[in-house]
């Protein structure tokens, strides 16, 4: 960080940030990551809850399985996604043949790639937080007649609130920084699938200063978003 700041050519910063690819990339990043986080929340929270309350070998292995996308180098993850959802993929081919739609090279693919890499962070962080919540509240809610769904939405969810926010921040940051899976699965086309990290990487190939300028812009955005949201929602 300090190294980065120390070597930044502050004078040229403005010029770099006015490059035409910068703002579309940042806008795309912000949009896709927000969708990703929303999906993480919708899909991941129930999963985290189930994992936190489940016992036995199935849950243990499911939990380990959740870490797969974390361990997999993102590029390999992207290849796996292509093999599954690509035009020739296990799922993608029948869909393409039936409807003529194909995912890769679309913003949807960007979201999918981000979801693939950030979901585990969300689920595992939220699961840890939910496990630290006293299970007796679940029991009390059950005796009051609450269905598992209601226990989840009205008891587990609010009680694990801080953990969920942490998890969402984590997942959002991870999605924002996501590079390998996106480039492999969604490609890199300015305006459609070129997110900020892709723009940074591409810039890095011939003008490190421009790359650094873009990175700093990304960081600024993320600091602002996280700082403000946290400032508002947490104490």
């Amino acid at each position: 960080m300090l190294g980065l700041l120390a070597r930044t050519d502050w004078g040229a910063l403005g010029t770099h940030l006015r490059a035409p690819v910068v703002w579309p990339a940042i806008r795309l990043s912000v949009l896709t990551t927000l969708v990703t986080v929303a999906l993480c929340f919708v899909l991941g929270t129930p999963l985290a809850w189930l994992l936190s309350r489940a016992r036995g070998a199935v849950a243990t292995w499911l939990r380990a399985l959740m870490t797969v996308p974390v361990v997999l180098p993102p590029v390999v993850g992207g290849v796996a996604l292509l093999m599954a959802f690509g035009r020739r993929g296990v799922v993608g081919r029948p869909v393409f043949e039936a409807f003529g739609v194909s995912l890769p090279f679309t913003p949807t693919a960007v979201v999918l790639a981000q979801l693939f890499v950030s979901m585990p962070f969300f689920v595992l962080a939220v699961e840890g937080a939910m496990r630290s919540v006293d299970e007796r509240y679940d029991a009390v809610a059950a005796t009051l007649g609450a269905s598992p769904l209601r226990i989840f939405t009205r008891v587990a969810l609010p009680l694990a609130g801080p953990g969920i926010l942490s998890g969402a921040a984590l997942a959002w940051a991870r999605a924002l920084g996501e590079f390998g899976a996106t480039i492999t699965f969604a490609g890199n086309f300015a305006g459609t699938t070129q997110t900020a990290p892709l723009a940074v990487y591409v810039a890095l190939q011939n003008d490190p200063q421009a790359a650094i300028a873009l990175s700093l812009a990304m960081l600024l955005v993320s600091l602002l978003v996280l700082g403000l949201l946290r400032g508002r929602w947490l104490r």
Partner: protein
Amino acid sequence: MTLDARVRAHRGGFAVDVALEAADRAVVAVLGPNGAGKTTLLHALAGLLRLDEGHVRVDGQAWAEGRLHLEPARRAVGLLAADHLLFPHLSARGNVAFGPRSRGASREAAHARAEAELAALGVRELAERRPGQLSHGQAQRVALARALATDPRLLLLDEPLSALDPSTRPQVRAGLAARLRDYDGVTVVVTHDPLDALTLADQLVFVEDGAVVQVGPPSEVVARPRTPYVAHVVGLNLFAGTAPDGTRVETGVGPVVTGGHEHRGASWVSFAPTAVALYPQEPHGSTRNVWPARVVAVELAGQSARVRLDVGGEALLAEVTAGSVATLRLQPGSRLWAGVKATEVTAYPS
């Protein structure tokens, strides 16, 4: 609505084996020493603990039996846990409305119900507060309101009044008693306070070490305790012994002359602490049972005093006026004489 339960269950190395039966609208009070298994019993009835054996049937419908085990949410129970466990993120009203909402009431209906329950327990003005902003006794009343608000078929109350102050407690108790009399379901209330039990319950169940030691309507249990613990709770002195004839029982403190009894053989004798008179010297008069005693402790309670005595190794409790304590200069270690008239002594087979 009736309850028919035979609960065999365990928590860790501890097992309970208790049978409970209760008719429509009955209130059963469960009493017993700390660690006897009262809370374990309630949890088993609520479905938080699986039965090892036995059954729980409410209104003829099995909630647990053999391999059947209805989840708590599918039993119409209301449980007030001893450590009230109010949801920390909901207001008092939100906590009370949680049950009705869970069981399908509209938001308005649930809130109105919550307001009513809170008002009945004198905590309406706390409706907006979070549990963290309530005192202990206030929180307990909110938790009680929450348990009552679901109209359960089986209402389970674990020490519902323990944190209430002495002026609130009788009011809440009286309100609860009235409420339970009209309430069309079975209530099981765990309490350490005999006054709660006597005021609220139709039937007392004493549990010791996981098993029932005495069951019966209050009047019977109060008159004829069958274990020292029960005697202690109902405030009687109790001795075990053998009745050779219809006038005496041989006990650990020697022969006790009774008011007359039919049976022979193994026997309990009991008498009230208020029936025990204390004398500085050995009395000579109509009092038939007289023992030399040593004072163990004196407890002043309001205007009367309870004097714990040791009579030849057995504990004896006497209740006298606060004035007598001063007159007799009672203090731990004092030696004196204790007497009980034969007419005050009851004997019954054990």
